[in-house]
């Protein structure tokens, strides 16, 4: 596990380096790398922007591991937490025009399982790395 502080672009860059330059994505297809990178950056952005209100001094923790064919990725902040059920659907007619609020939707679409822990301060995401249909 590692913690990162700084502006949002700095933290996004640092966490991207931490996860994607390790051997965890070695040999993965560009589509899988795209999905993992997107989920990571959306989760980090949510933690920084919403969890910490943009405060660059509060640390965002990243943890990842490969268990069998699964990649487990966790992002945690130290904010007040949130109720995931309270987030409006960005695909609703009024949501479509909004400039923000699509991060969780994309995370849920590109990862195979998503859990919100610690009252919404921690998100745990799982993505199976095996090709679809393989045993």
């Amino acid at each position: 596990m590692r913690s990162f502080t700084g502006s949002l672009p700095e933290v996004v860059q640092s966490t991207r380096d931490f996860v994607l330059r390790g051997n965890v994505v070695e040999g993965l297809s560009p589509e899988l790398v795209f999905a993992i990178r997107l989920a990571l950056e959306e989760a980090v952005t949510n933690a920084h922007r919403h969890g910490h209100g943009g405060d660059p001094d509060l640390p965002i923790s990243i943890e990842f591991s490969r268990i069998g064919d699964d990649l487990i990725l966790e992002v945690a902040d130290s904010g007040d937490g949130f109720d995931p059920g309270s987030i409006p659907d960005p695909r609703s007619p009024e949501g479509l025009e909004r400039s923000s609020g699509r991060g969780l939707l994309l995370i849920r679409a590109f990862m195979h399982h998503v859990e919100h822990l610690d009252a919404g301060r921690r998100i745990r995401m799982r993505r199976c790395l095996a090709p679809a249909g393989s045993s």
Partner: protein
Amino acid sequence: MTSHPFDQNLDQAIESTTFGDVSIVGFQTGSLLDESLVRNLESTALNAAVTVDRPKLIVDFEGVVHLTSAALGALLTIRREVEGRQGTLILTGLSPAIDEVFDIACLRPVFAFAADRSAAIDLCQA
């Protein structure tokens, strides 16, 4: 010293060109359309859109290997500005992965798309 593929020079990552009265915003090969670059995209595109009435703007995603929801938000902001001036915004050059992001977000009906830059120019000039 070689750069890592996840590195990018933000100053050089976006190119803005014109074709007649059409403004085209494009990207360097391998661009990561993340929080940092989204700000450049929004300012570059809005600069092109606000200088004329009925702006014709193309955002060409050729070369973009990654984007986040921040890019979708920026594109919606750009669209509002362009449509507020009775202009035209066309998106083109989307990879299958980026295409999927638009589908997931249900934004396909919101934007106009073209198969390539040439088709986008034709649409703008129609």
